[in-house]
């Protein structure tokens, strides 16, 4: 296997990821890419609490993740890569061939408007996603596997 889900989700590790996606995908590891969490053992312990022991959790900075993606892609287990922002995911895509990106949850913040119930974007964030799509990456929004995948053109 390899990385089967590249997901943008500002909640990072939570129920939808561990149970909603992790169970049907039989995830063996989750890579949480976030510079702030990578720097805090306390935050890492907090995120580990939501993950069953048979799933390994790897905490990586954006730079570390960009370097280690080939290693994770070659892992025989099924993996999920999580980023909390579009910018973080875009940085991972800069030097790697990511085929699909799942927008799983970006919630309300000042400057963002509602695009879907679980996706709020600023105009510049919508443009970032369109630029990634222009490079051939398939981008859809889908909070859980049983929901329909919404094409990028329908929420930007």
């Amino acid at each position, binding site marked *: 296997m390899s990385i089967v889900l590249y997901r943008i989700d*500002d909640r990072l590790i*939570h129920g939808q990821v*561990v149970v909603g996606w992790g169970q049907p995908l039989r995830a063996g590891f989750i890579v949480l890419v976030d510079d702030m969490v990578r720097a805090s053992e306390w935050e890492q312990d907090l995120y580990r*609490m939501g993950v069953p022991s048979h799933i390994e959790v790897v905490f990586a900075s954006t730079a570390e993740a960009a370097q280690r993606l080939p290693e994770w892609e070659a892992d025989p287990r099924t993996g999920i890569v999580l980023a909390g922002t579009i910018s973080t995911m875009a940085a991972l895509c800069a030097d790697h061939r990511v085929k699909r990106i799942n927008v799983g949850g*970006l*919630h309300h913040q000042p400057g963002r408007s509602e695009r879907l119930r679980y996706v709020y974007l600023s105009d510049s964030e919508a443009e970032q996603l369109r630029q990634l799509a222009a490079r051939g990456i398939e981008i859809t929004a889908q909070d859980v596997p049983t929901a329909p995948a919404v094409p990028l053109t329908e929420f930007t």
Partner: protein
Amino acid sequence: MSEPLRGVIVSHSAVAQALVSAVAAITGVSDALIPVSNDGCDGGALGARLATAIGDRPALLFVDLPGGSCLTSSVRLARGKTNVAVVTGVNLAMLLDFVFHRDLPPAEAARRAAEAGARAIRTPAA
């Protein structure tokens, strides 16, 4: 006498509101618990909802799952505060016990809630 603890139920979807309603229906106590849902929230927004619910009163946060956004936001909020404690795996039994024992220190109330909740999980013979 110190101020009684406020119970804040932190859950996915409408679980918290349903539990508050059930406790009121069973006990008649309607001012001990506040529901907070994570619907539509990132971590920051949920933290703000929790801060508003707690105010400056001593509180016990009842979280639905022992992981995920409800827990991370609750633990971040309680970190370093002696007047706020967290217990996970909320169930109706622990809430029914809590509303009649709100005069405990938060950490002790959390231990009591965990014990009351655990006692209610059984497998009765059919």
